[in-house]
């Protein structure tokens, strides 16, 4: 009888220790990966700071950084110090932060919407930010706000505004937000806003290049003040995303099963969308629209580290930072003329083919 066979098996002891050890091995591997990425990130920051039109040796970079941190070091001349600390390091740090923010937002969007193509673009958030900037440029709003150009604020308002519109559009009568309607609403809003941007571009020839430059995304001329501007959004967005990492795992099973398992689906989804939007808005506000980081990095990390969102979020943040730091270095030095490329062009050139490879490769195909 099947009944007796079940109870007979139940008499054997459960392999708690084995299961626990297996899970511990997973944790150990994660910590190793994290240490490796962290080390890589530190080395990258120093290396990337040394690279540029003005030759600066690595020891000098160290001297400047440690000097600023309050250590006694060999004196460095003023110009070098300004270039290393004020211009390059701030830019490297900013690109790292933006990379981490975009990758984290990508993980959240993809996990929430069960859609490999979900990213700040699909949901209209990036386009909203771009429209905010285009409007300000057209209106010729100048001056400064808290020492910043008002453009980042425009981007921020545009991003959050677009997210709100998308959420309202996709909200059903009962207050539930369905993921299908969310993506549709995102695409509709995004298309509409793009049309508005094109309208602004054609109405106002003068602002064309400024808008285009912004839309391509760049870290040119950014400094510590932008880091300061990004940080609050970044912290809030990261906290929200990590707070709900377990729910993200469960929500990958779909709305219905999440409900059955006790997740307050609508509330959690709203908070996660808010977190990811804050990350995107902050990133777009300081750097313009940089594509593909939020799309490719989560895919890449998922293939290597598995689908568990706690690990995925952390590792993606680090990987995103690494990738964008080096993409920005490439943007700075790639053109022989000494001109800078918009970093968005670099990420799109690298990310496009890479994404194609991911789509075609065996290991990811079963995933979607």
């Amino acid at each position, binding site marked *: 009888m099947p009944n007796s066979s079940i109870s007979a098996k139940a008499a054997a002891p*459960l392999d708690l220790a084995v299961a626990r050890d297996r899970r511990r091995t997973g944790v150990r591997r994660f910590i190793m990966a994290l240490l490796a990425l962290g080390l890589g990130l530190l080395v990258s920051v120093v290396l990337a700071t040394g690279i540029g039109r003005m030759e600066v040796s690595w020891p000098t970079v160290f001297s400047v950084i440690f000097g600023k941190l309050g250590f006694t070091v060999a004196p460095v001349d003023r110009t070098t110090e300004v270039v290393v600390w004020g211009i390059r390091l701030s830019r490297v740090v900013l690109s790292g932060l933006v990379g981490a923010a975009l990758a984290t937002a990508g993980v959240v969007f993809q996990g929430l919407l069960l859609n490999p193509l979900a990213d700040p673009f699909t949901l209209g958030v990036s386009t909203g930010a771009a429209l905010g900037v285009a409007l300000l440029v057209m209106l010729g709003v100048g001056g400064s706000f808290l020492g910043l150009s008002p453009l980042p604020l425009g981007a921020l308002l545009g991003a959050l505004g677009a997210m709100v519109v998308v959420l309202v559009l996709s909200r059903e009568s009962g207050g539930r937000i369905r993921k299908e309607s969310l993506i549709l609403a995102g695409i509709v809003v995004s298309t509409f806003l793009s049309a508005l941007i094109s309208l602004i571009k054609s109405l106002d020839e003068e602002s064309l290049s400024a808008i285009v430059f912004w839309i391509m995304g760049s870290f040119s001329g950014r400094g510590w003040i932008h880091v300061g501007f990004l940080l609050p959004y970044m912290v809030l967005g990261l906290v929200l995303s990590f707070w709900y990492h377990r729910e993200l795992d469960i929500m990958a099973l779909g709305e219905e099963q999440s409900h059955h*398992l006790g*997740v307050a689906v609508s509330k959690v989804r709203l908070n996660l969308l808010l977190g990811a939007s804050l990350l995107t808005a902050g990133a777009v506000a300081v750097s313009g629209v940089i594509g593909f980081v939020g799309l490719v990095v989560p895919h890449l990390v998922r293939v290597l580290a598995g689908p568990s969102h706690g690990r995925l979020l952390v590792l993606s943040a680090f990987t995103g930072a690494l990738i964008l730091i080096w993409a920005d270095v490439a943007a700075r030095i790639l053109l022989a003329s000494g001109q800078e490329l918009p970093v968005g062009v670099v990420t799109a050139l690298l990310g496009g083919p890479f994404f194609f490879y991911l789509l075609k490769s065996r290991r990811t195909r079963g*995933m979607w």
Partner: protein
Amino acid sequence: MIRVEELELGYGERLVLKGLNFQVERGEFVGILGPNGSGKSTLIHALSGLLAPLKGKIIIRDEHLGSLSSRLRAQMLGVVPQTSDVRFPFPCLEIVLMGRYPHRKRLGSLTDEDLLWALRSMRRTTTEHLQERPVTEVSGGERQRVVIARALAQDPQILLLDEATSSLDVRKKLEIFEILKFLNVTQNLTVLCAMHDLNLAALYCGRLMFIRDGGIVQDGPTGEVFTPAILGQVYETPMEVIRHPGHQRPYAVMLPLSPGEIEEDAPEVARA
């Protein structure tokens, strides 16, 4: 355990079920039967809190279902849906561990108790060997058993199943119902399952509820309601009910809609 009063269910303008009144006591094994589109799944959705009632009350252990927090609801109610397509390659053990979500503290890490619950549930559903396998790579029957293990890991008092075995072959169906029966008998687990397979229902359910035309048309002990008259009325199909000589449970045999055809197709059998 479950009390339903004057329940009215539907989607927007479309009314699916109305005037439902019933009670289910602890330890019952209830089959919900009815033709396609009669509202079996709708009822399960409502009982699981997924679909808010248009009117009426669902009371689970003296609490209104709608006023329970998601967490408390999931501690009492486990649900096995019709299909459970999982897109991310989580190992099966991780899927089952998700059943511990309503019992875990947000900042606490996974305890040995959680892990034990998961392993015990996997053993009960004979999925222990699948612990490491990605859920995207197991067969449909195995996945359904993993999902049942997940529902069991919730440590629920009530288990709702929505056509959970419809896509499985005979052996897999029986295996799953053996597990449900075992838990029903040993743990006093209350089981409600919406199902299509009449004979499977007659074999395992102690009570059957027939749904048709927006309401419950029959509800009672299997022995009393599993009759040719009721089955014929509910499914609009002529049926005969025979008692199996061995286990004494009733089983239904459908009769052809037009009696003439059998003779033409297989005259020898008909004559014998």
